[in-house]
């Protein structure tokens, strides 16, 4: 990892469990990192969430999306939870999402990606 990515990881891993996907969407998901979902779902919870709100795959963990849906309304970006987030660009793993945000690299989508806002 480059120095900036190392700093980002040092800050975000302990707080958000950041996985360094390099295309951060935390603010739009109630400051809950969707990459902690074992299925890495970026658009909402799967249908397997347990009745107690815990994860189908890791019963000891609360579902990332149960938390996201709970927390999102308390953030200034509440409406963004309804956004349809594009597929992960797997080339960006372990790069700094801060740098990718500034260069708008994280907004680059495949040409066939068109969805209703």
């Amino acid at each position, binding site marked *: 990892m480059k120095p900036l990515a190392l700093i980002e990881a040092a800050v975000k891993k302990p707080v958000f469990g950041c996985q360094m996907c390099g295309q951060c969407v935390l603010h739009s998901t109630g400051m809950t990192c969707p990459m902690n979902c074992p299925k890495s779902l970026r*658009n909402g919870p799967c249908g397997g*969430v347990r009745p107690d709100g815990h994860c189908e795959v890791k019963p000891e963990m609360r579902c990332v999306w149960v938390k996201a*849906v709970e927390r999102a309304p308390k953030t200034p970006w509440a409406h963004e939870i309804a956004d349809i987030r594009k*597929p992960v660009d797997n080339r960006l793993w372990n790069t700094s999402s801060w740098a990718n945000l500034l260069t708008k690299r994280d907004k680059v989508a495949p040409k066939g990606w068109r*969805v209703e806002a």
Partner: protein
Amino acid sequence: MSRLEEAIAAGRFIVTAELLTINAGGLDAVHRHFEPFEDFVDAVNATDNTAAHAHASPLAVAIALKQLGMEPVMQLVCRDRNRLALQAEIAGAALHGIENICCLTGDDVTAGDEPEARRVFDLDSIQLLAVAESMRKGRYLSGRRLDPPPHLFLGAVENPQAPPVHHRVDRALKKVRAGARFLQLQVVFDIDPLMSFMIEAGQKGLAERAAILPSICLVRSPGALRFIDERVPGISVPEDVIERCERAADPEAECFDVACELADAARSLPGVRGLHLISFRKEAGIARLCARLGIPTREERETIGNGSRVAV
């Protein structure tokens, strides 16, 4: 236009059913699985490695269904294939005239008999729908052209019962925005969560934008109900339902009654356009349920008339 799309567009009451998994036995095996209920259904779902167990692929089974004169709904889950493989399946399906494609997240590999497998989830179900919708309009995800664009009729699944329940209609709306035109809901054994879901679906316009089909599951024994409650991700069975079946003089008949009552309640909910039926019973459970509820056969539904909803 697929037969399912046509039936939905005409406002007819829809019945779809799940095909039990196929592992061997050629086309005969496929036919045996849907033969008991073929008169009642508009389409049959070819599942994609259900509960993370390997089976004959949904594309192969969908082709088999088509060859046997049955309308397939090809399910695709995100667990086992990356975005290239998923698009290849869709293009391949279209090549064979398979238009109905139902996009799901999929149970995790840990739910299956090969929990050591690598999970993929390169796309999530909403992204998969958006990619399929893009293909329908003539573009792969990369932007490369498909010419002519394939006829596709896209669907999805939503679980009215799993937390966060107050987010489920919103998530289903995302699926509709991404391209879903029909929704086969996850199985419920309790009418209350389904009722809440349908009320919200009506308020938020979901029921207008997609044909919603609640799923009803037929089982043989209270033991099966308990198994589903404990082991199947995302489905719970109320304790009083299990106890009612256990206490009954004829538990198998009681399980059937429970399913019929649920199906009857589900089809009367506002916004419900039909039913998706799943039976783990070998004999003609689905046909019996349709007969018990007075649901006409598919041919009868088609001749009763287009445009108006069939009173069942």
